[in-house]
């Protein structure tokens, strides 16, 4: 069964088209990540799915039923927001229980589900506190708990980790992945961070300016990007794009080469000077200005003695390079 189907979904605010003809399916139990730069319409798409905004045209169906005219609370979804959005006047327990109380569930069911979520998220010590007495990470866990308690057909996450610091972000990311495995629920996760997308997703949907650019598993998108945007968006450091290089390119075309595919050699097709070195311990990233005045990133594994200012020659295996035409589409 499909958890979610979007058919020709469009959304405009006044005359501004924010979503343009989105078609998409999410299978049962799938973890789908919407990724794209800020302002590309990810949150709007999520709000349309949740029913917080009406689609201008097109249909949204959840679990096989068209839900265009059904209010958010009855769609069988739960949402986790970037800003946590906990009710400030309620305790942690009541925050989690509110949705079920509104559904008029019996108290025994409410208690059972809340307790289970509290166990799962390790929130035992905090159930009677107010949100203002919790740290950012704890608040986000409460927000996740509030979603779990509703036992939804579809989870929606809108950049849930953006307000957390780096270390906590990684832990919470792992927790969300584990949660997905234990609940085997369908989840949609929105982020602008390609690392989160690559590490969490079964399926990534890359969005740009309200349009779907490409859909596929993380490795499909990484190994086979359909266009220059997807190629440049996924992978860190991001792909190098060169226009002036000793290789046959289509008219006005671009060559794409990932930083880890560049090799430092005695005599290569790219010559340049090192302008900056980032030593990360495990890797070393070199920033190189080529003699054609293009900037490249080179990722070397391990620790490398190269110094700033040094002249350097680089080369690559043609089979690992990508070629894009003048419209930035991939040429295979």
């Amino acid at each position: 069964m499909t958890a979610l189907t979007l058919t020709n979904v469009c959304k405009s605010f006044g005359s501004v088209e924010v979503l343009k003809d989105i078609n998409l399916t999410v299978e049962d139990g799938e973890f789908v990540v919407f990724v794209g730069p800020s302002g590309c319409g990810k949150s709007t798409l999520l709000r349309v799915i949740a029913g917080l905004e009406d689609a201008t045209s097109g249909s949204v169906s959840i679990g096989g039923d068209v839900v265009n005219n059904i209010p958010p609370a009855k769609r069988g979804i739960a949402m986790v927001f970037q800003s946590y959005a906990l009710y400030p006047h309620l305790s942690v327990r009541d925050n989690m229980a509110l949705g079920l109380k509104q559904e008029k569930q019996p108290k025994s069911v409410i208690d059972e589900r809340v307790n289970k979520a509290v166990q799962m998220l390790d929130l035992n010590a905090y159930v009677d506190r107010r949100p203002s007495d919790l740290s950012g990470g704890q608040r986000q866990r409460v927000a996740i708990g509030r979603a779990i308690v509703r036992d939804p057909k579809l989870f929606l996450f809108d950049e849930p980790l953006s307000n957390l610091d780096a270390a906590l972000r990684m832990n919470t990311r792992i927790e969300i992945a584990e949660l997905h495995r234990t609940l085997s629920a369908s989840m949609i996760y929105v982020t602008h961070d390609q690392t989160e997308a690559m590490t969490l997703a079964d399926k990534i949907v890359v969005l740009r300016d309200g349009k779907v650019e490409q859909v596929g598993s993380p490795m499909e998108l990484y190994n086979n990007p359909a266009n220059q945007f997807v190629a440049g968006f996924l992978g860190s450091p991001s792909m190098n794009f060169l226009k002036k290089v000793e290789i046959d390119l289509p008219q006005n075309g671009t060559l794409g080469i990932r930083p880890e595919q560049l090799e430092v050699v005695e005599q290569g097709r790219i010559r340049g000077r090192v302008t900056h070195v980032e030593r990360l311990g495990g890797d070393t990233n070199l920033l190189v200005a080529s003699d054609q005045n293009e900037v490249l990133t080179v990722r070397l594994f391990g620790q490398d003695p190269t110094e700033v200012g040094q002249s350097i020659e680089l080369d690559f295996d043609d089979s690992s390079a990508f070629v894009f035409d003048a419209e930035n589409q991939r040429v295979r």
Partner: protein
Amino acid sequence: MNTARHNRFNTFAAHGVLILYTLIALFPVFVIVINSFKTRKAIFREPLAMPNADSFSLIGYETVLKQGDFFLYFQNSMIVTVGSLFFILLFGAMAAFALAEYRFKGNLMMGLYLALGIMIPIRIGTVAILEMMVQTGLVNTLWALILVYTAQGLPLAVFILSEFMRQVSDDLKNAGRIDGLSEYRIFFRLVLPLVRPAMATVAVFNMIPIWNDLWFPLILAPAEEVKTLTLGSQVFIGQFVTDWNAVLSALSLAILPVMALYVIFSRQLIRGITSGAVK
């Protein structure tokens, strides 16, 4: 952050200016209060002197309290002020929420129309208001005053509150919608508590002009049983003789309830700001 804040001299200067301002602002009140405790002769002989054994007298207060209806006036003023504030805050907040939260045709025009009321003084419409009150039979009732003051206070209330409501997190309201809260519950339980400081500001802004108003009580409700305190105190001010003891005592007493209300609202104001409720 702002290094000027931590500068000793600037702190000192700022406090100096504020203390000076406070002294200037409080001086007339101080003169009223001390003179209300003096004999008529002493008021005129040395208006700035403190009352002493010689000049001390409660004659003003006695006159005011003997005037019998003083407590009734007091009660009327209280009912009118509290009632008007209640309706201003209730309807103002509701209109502000609708303007801030919902996209509908004419949203902008409606906002501008309401804001227009800030610029046009309601007294221009006094004659029409009086005619309306006569026709609806509301003349000489407290309702006449409450309705007029509510209308007078609404534009600014809507303007200020809608600005604050726009700042309440959309995510919070949306979380409520997903949990199945009605729009009314979202308004009363989620949004209103977060804009409490703004509500207190609106209340303080409206309270004092309503309490002190003489114009509308004189025109719409001059009857003895619905007189407000300000109107009631006018009996002591005559064209030829003015009972200064009584006037000053009445004014001193009139300050008390406004001060009490102010303390209540400003507590809210400060609590709202310091608890960081919005974030």
